[in-house]
């Protein structure tokens, strides 16, 4: 029988995804005045939920597959499409998401600890 992946494995994958997104958003903000820069976006939720539905181990393999450069957003006079308000909003959302995953992971570890203690 194949072992069903643990909840903590999915949470770890989600944390990696959220950390990657934080880098991408930081990069968008750092390049808000770079001529011709197009904002990047990291998407991992779809891959992760597919893995969860299929009961497979989460594989967020190549970061290049998760990061997409936008093509159809409006650009300003220097060909740059970074919208600071949106980046900041996305970043606050992503930070909250990361903290949630991290606390859930902490809870999962505490549960394991509890199970070990009660069996003594």
């Amino acid at each position: 029988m194949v072992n069903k992946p643990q909840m903590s494995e999915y949470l770890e994958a989600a944390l990696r995804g959220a950390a990657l997104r934080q880098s991408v958003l930081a990069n968008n903000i750092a390049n808000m005045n770079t001529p011709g820069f197009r904002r990047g976006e990291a998407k991992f939720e779809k891959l992760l939920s597919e893995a969860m539905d299929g009961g497979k181990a989460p594989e967020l393999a190549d970061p290049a597959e998760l990061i997409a450069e936008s093509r159809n957003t409006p650009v300003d006079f220097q060909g740059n499409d970074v919208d600071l308000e949106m980046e900041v909003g996305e970043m606050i959302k992503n930070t909250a998401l990361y903290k949630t995953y991290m606390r859930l992971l902490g809870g999962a570890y505490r549960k394991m600890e509890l199970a070990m203690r009660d069996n003594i």
Partner: protein
Amino acid sequence: MEIRGISNPIDIAISGLRVESTRMNVIAENIANASTTRTPSGEPYRRQDLLLSTSDGGISGVRLEDVVADRATDFRTVHQPGHPDADANGFVQMPNVELPMEMMNLVSASRAYEANAAVMKQYKEMMEVAIELLR
């Protein structure tokens, strides 16, 4: 899009902070020299601008390529017959620095600086939660 390397958000934010603070230096230089008529090259002062690029295709922040002189705009001509650098008709060539534009760039630089500082703060918050797990 090819990804060659992904940096830590702190390093990315630092690259943004450094570029924006250089921008402040350059703007200050432009404003200080708004009416400098003599430079080593013989012509009036030319306003300086930053040349930026995204760091080599990866997710690793912004890079300052160079500080270049703005050759797209012309020098201002002012009628000031008493000026030592005036020509035969009393006209003086003044730098191509436009104060309103420099002020606008200054506001945009300080806004971008704050945004990068906010990125660092957000990341710090994330890390604090991760450290909680060790308690």
